[in-house]
């Protein structure tokens, strides 16, 4: 692998990895809320997230482009065509995946375990975390699915990243560029690496999750 190619892969990994971490900061509490608390509008919220699962990346990309562009309401941030824009976009893209999968994983844990945790001395928060721990298999799967979706998407990275060499160029945008400029070998090479990452991660997690 050439040094350039290596940098590209590493950039893709950290951008999508950061997007995953960012998405988790709000998706974890949101999933706990949806999975554990009974409140009005809960069902509607859950189905809203479910229907957002298949949101087209171009739609999200375009929306964010309009927001982040110079004339847009968030243009003052100056993040268009930076990795930050891609990270935010991918984090939003994968939020419904994490929330949907994690909520259903949490829902499938016996709710009485919360009482168990409490009678063993857990606070409300610790009891919730215990439930989250019981849902960890589903949670890890949700994380992997989300990461894979982030690293594979093209629309957002292209529209708010701009495929700038050495800055916002990631695997998916480079694969697309390679095809349009006729650099087939490069595109194929990158696609194979992307597939290896995506499948490798899934296999790894499945092996680790066996008990």
């Amino acid at each position, binding site marked *: 692998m050439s040094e350039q190619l290596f940098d590209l892969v590493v950039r893709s990994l950290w951008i999508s990895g950061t997007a995953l971490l960012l998405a988790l900061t709000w998706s974890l509490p949101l999933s706990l809320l949806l999975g554990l608390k009974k409140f009005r509008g809960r069902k509607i919220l859950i189905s809203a997230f479910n229907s957002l699962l298949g949101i087209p990346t171009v739609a999200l990309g375009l929306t964010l482009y309009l927001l982040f562009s110079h004339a847009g309401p968030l243009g003052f941030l100056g993040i268009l065509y930076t990795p930050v824009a891609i990270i935010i976009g991918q984090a939003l893209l994968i939020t419904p995946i994490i929330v949907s999968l994690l909520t259903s994983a949490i829902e499938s844990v*016996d709710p*009485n*375990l919360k*009482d*168990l*945790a*409490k*009678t*063993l*001395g*857990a*606070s*409300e928060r*610790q009891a919730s975390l*215990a439930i989250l*721990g*019981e849902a960890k298999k589903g949670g890890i799967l949700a994380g992997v699915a989300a990461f894979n979706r982030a690293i594979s998407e093209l629309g957002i990275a292209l529209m708010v990243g701009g495929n700038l060499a050495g800055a916002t160029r990631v695997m998916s945008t480079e694969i697309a560029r390679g095809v349009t400029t006729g650099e087939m070998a490069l595109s194929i090479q990158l696609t194979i690496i992307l597939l290896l990452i995506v499948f490798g991660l899934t296999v790894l997690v499945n092996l680790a999750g066996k*008990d």
Partner: protein
Amino acid sequence: MNVIMELKKVTREYEGKSALCGINLKIKHGEVFSLIGPNGAGKTTLLRIMAFLDKPTNGKIIYKGKEAWGPNLTKYRKKVTMVFQRPLFFNSTVFDNIAYGLKLRGYSSEEIEQKVDNVLRLVKMEDFQERSIKKISGGEQQRVAMARAIALNPELLLLDEPTANLDPANTKLIEKIIKKISKITTVVVATHNLFQAKRLSDRIGCLLSGRLIDVGNTRDIFSRPRDERTKKFVRGEFF
């Protein structure tokens, strides 16, 4: 003898239906108290309130002289532990299940290993540490649930029908364990097994349709029950 927990006019309603009605009860420090009554009498409901898991609809709980049910219930839950009728477990090993509450209390890993070891020896399961909780029998699970509670060294241990689904051998073993730990902690046992109540307890309370109809020393409850219904009760007519 001083009182560890006192319930004052405790009631509990489920969707407007009364499950407990005006319960006044003092649990004395160091005793074994049996709560007897037929299915649906409200034993579980009462124990859950005593365990600070459910809030009474009305009434007060006095724990060691102080009214409980403030914002800081965790403090009380660390002193009172309940073993549920249908034992619940984290999907993990025997060791992890017992260690959970100990970790919450901030013990070091050496202390935790030591405590898990001791308590598993008490329930005669010293070789079960690394076994998956899913792969042991119902009787063994009940013993782990007991061990897990005992490891926390609770001031008050609440046992909800600890032998309801067990064979005679396991029942005998559990009763032995209860006898042993009753020397170091206060125990409240809910049971619909009269003979068990007789074997284990210093005092007995009879619960019927959410009302505590009689409370007394075990011998008195059986030999000269004050309440007509208790008389029928100990003759086995409600069961």
